[in-house]
């Protein structure tokens, strides 16, 4: 009798499922989510140059480094002010031809995790071989550095020393005011351990986002999909993708009309379909006309004191975190051109110096100021803030020299035992 009714029941069940939009939709959603998680469809469009796999190409290097088994002794952190010169120095160091086009920025510089020249200098100056991991992220701010360090330490790794390059822009970026809206936050907040949810006071929205992101890969990476789709639409329609790019295009048009050189430092050779073209490399740096000053005026002014205060509190947290793990920190005040510095009100410069010095004293961090030893001219920069190979060489050599001759720092860094391997950051119930 059971045999007679079971097929009937199954048939009825199948009919119910096949006839219900709700059940089918839930099933399709779960299946699509599983496929998307596995296939990562945006990778299929990598050739378009529009994909921002793992949220953003700027931060794509972070997750693999976090879960890698290597445990380098020196962690190099900072923004593009650290990242760009470290690539240029390595290019010079290995006698590689460096490039000045967008493709190179996107595919080499943004994803670069080495600092071999600096590593070599460190070994030479201190007589000890240490591996350096370069986790500097372009367009990052101080809160991002804190998050990167926290996640890095949470992953089970423990460096002997942290070198953090800072500049006023890390604390005063009007374009990136909200610590929870940066690419770094987007990618690393999703790597949250459950204890983070309880340790930090997080908004209801943040917790809900985390929960939804956990259940839906598309939700978690919706920024990627949106960026790709709007980027593609913008390309097809010939419109800039957002207000920022629109403003830049208008500036470009205005500059072209006035017959002045374009404000863009990085050239963007594109093929006929508008895709970044790797077959047209640009090996020669443009003359440094400090055209990015206009953008930096927008970044700095008007000075937002609340942002400054918040970002300084993250430097405080950063140093406290490193101290709690007994990792010495070297704060490098990255040089910028005097024209760039002149954009800042005097009181802000003074507050920046004072606050950094105060925090360094509080947490026993070492401050290195390359400007104390060298004077830098526009010849040392690619624009108003990014050092070129020449300027970078002088900075990294000086930093290595300062670290090498600081015996106390060397002793403190030796105390820190190197952890072996790493713990991948995962949801604890997974």
């Amino acid at each position, binding site marked *: 009798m059971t045999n007679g009714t079971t097929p009937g029941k199954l048939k009825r069940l199948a009919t119910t499922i096949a006839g*219900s*939009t709700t059940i089918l*939709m839930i099933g*399709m*959603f779960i299946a699509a989510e599983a496929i998307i998680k596995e296939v990562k469809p945006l990778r299929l469009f990598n050739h378009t140059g529009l994909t921002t796999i793992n949220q953003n190409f700027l931060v794509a290097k972070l997750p693999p480094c976090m879960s890698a088994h290597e445990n380098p002794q020196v962690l190099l952190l900072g923004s593009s002010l650290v990242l760009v010169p470290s690539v240029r120095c390595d290019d010079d160091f290995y006698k590689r031809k460096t490039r000045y086009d967008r493709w190179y920025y996107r595919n080499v510089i943004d994803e670069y995790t080495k600092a071999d020249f600096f590593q070599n200098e460190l070994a030479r100056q201190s007589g000890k071989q240490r591996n350096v991991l370069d986790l500097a992220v372009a367009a990052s701010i101080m809160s991002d550095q804190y998050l990167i360090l926290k996640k890095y330490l949470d992953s089970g790794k423990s460096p002997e020393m942290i070198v953090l390059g800072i500049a006023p822009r890390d604390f005063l970026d009007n374009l990136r005011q909200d610590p929870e809206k940066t690419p770094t936050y987007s990618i690393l907040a999703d790597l949250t351990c459950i204890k983070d949810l309880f340790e930090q006071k997080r908004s209801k929205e943040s917790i809900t986002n985390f929960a939804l992101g956990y259940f839906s890969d598309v939700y978690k990476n919706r920024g990627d999909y949106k960026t790709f789709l*709007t980027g593609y*639409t913008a390309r097809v329609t010939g*419109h800039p*993708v957002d207000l920022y790019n*629109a403003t830049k295009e208008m500036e470009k048009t205005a500059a072209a009309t006035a017959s002045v050189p374009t404000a863009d430092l990085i050239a963007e050779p594109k093929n006929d379909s508008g895709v970044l073209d790797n077959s047209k490399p640009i090996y020669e740096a443009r003359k440094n006309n400090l055209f990015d000053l206009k953008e930096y005026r927008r970044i700095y002014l008007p000075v937002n004191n609340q942002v400054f205060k918040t970002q300084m509190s993250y430097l405080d947290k950063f140093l406290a975190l490193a101290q709690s793990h007994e990792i010495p920190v070297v704060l490098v005040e990255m040089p910028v051109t005097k024209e760039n510095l002149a954009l800042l009100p005097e009181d802000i410069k003074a507050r920046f110096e004072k606050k950094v010095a105060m925090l360094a004293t509080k947490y026993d961090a070492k401050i290195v100021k390359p400007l104390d030893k060298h004077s830098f001219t526009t010849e040392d920069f690619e624009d108003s803030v990014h050092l070129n190979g020449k300027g970078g060489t002088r900075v990294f050599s000086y930093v290595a020299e300062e670290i090498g001759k600081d015996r106390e720092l060397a002793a403190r860094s030796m105390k820190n035992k190197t952890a072996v391997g790493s713990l991948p950051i995962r949801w604890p119930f997974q």
Partner: protein
Amino acid sequence: MLFTSLDYLLFLPVVVTLFWVLPLKFRLPMLLAASWFFYMCWNPAFILLIVGMTAANYMLGNILHNAQSHRKLIFGIGITANLLCLGVFKYATLFVTSAASVVGLVTHQTPDWHVNIILPLAISFFTFEFIHYLFEVYRGNKPVDNFVLFSLFAAFFPTQIAGPIKRYPDFVAQMLSHREKHPTLKMFDEGLPLILIGLAKKVLFADNLAVLVQMGLQEPSSYGAPELWLFAYAFAFQIYFDFSGYTDIARGSAMLFGYKIPINFNMPYIASNMSDFWHRWHISLSTWLRDYLFIPLGGSRGGRWMTNRNLFLTMALGGLWHGASWSFVVWGVYHGLALIIHREFTFIRDKVEWLKSFAQTKVFHVMSLLLTFHVVCVGWVFFRVENIGTAFSIVKRMVFFKPIYAAAEQGQFFVLKENMPVVVPVVMAMVALLLIQNWPVSYLNTKQYFKKLPAPVKAVFCTALLFAIITFTPDDSKPFIYFQF
């Protein structure tokens, strides 16, 4: 709590589950408690207002029903009390500032009179529902004998904030019928797609169009006629997607409780005249205005001119209902005049033979469709722009079309293109599509094409919609436009 918020995403499933899990006698009280909680999420103190007005109208309804004499007086007191509440909370500021302006005109010194009253959420909607209730009881219909059910009629959370304006006999009948019902898959199969469609209308279209409209309003004087028309089109579709999206979510949410809300929109932008437009736009309001304002004023019983007067008054007051601002009155008056013109035109049309036969042609139909759409768009300018002077200057520039407007020489279209990268082509495509959709969409709608689709096809559509919503939902979704009323 916005329908588009994550809070609602949690609230709705919890309430639906509780509703069907609880024993029958607890379902309505639970739904009422949830609806009052929903209201309190905005401002807890104002729960006293909605509960107070509910209790008063419940008692008045019963008194009216049982009264042997003075029924007209009791009815009058009830209507006056409701209108007084609405007047105090919604229009006091307008009356006081307007009075100050009038005094200022006479004495050449405007007094600094002002009142500070918070407009309670949804007051316009539940007051109209109470007025409808008293009217129907006065006309001899049976009142609701269950206070919980009556309270739920006013507070039912899917329709609480922005309607549709319900009719109590239908609501009560449906709410009581669930006593014999268990949740069925059909409820979810009909409700969930509607919620998704509503969400898509709101977050994919309305919220993105809002950016364009906002840009146009920031400095309207710097735009020429083509841009201003574009902004008007954009707002026309923004408000349609916003309000009909809200209604779809409301209807879908209500369906999960086994309650079917009648439609509030029926493709309004394919209306071929203004009368047709009001049969398709905010249907629950237009039928309310017809039943409880136009007809009591005399309707069309008093001849041609009296009918026009009643039409004019109904639309002017209907405009005022939308908000405490003279620009809404102007919008209502504009629609009243447009309806009168259409009515007069039909009299002329019926008398002139060639016009009568021309009116039967497709060319006439397309022309009237385009004309109606543009007349409605001009009306939206008064609806959206708070300052009447600015609204008139925008309309003047739109109507007296100057293709080479001074600002256009500076490349306004270029600015538009640069600032609104994706929206502009999308809007243009949408306007074109929606205008030419007349026949196919009407056909599909008449045939109830979506309903007849096989479940797997509908599921694919809904899943795709769900992914689109997830991807394109802005982080800060804007409140529904009709929430302010």
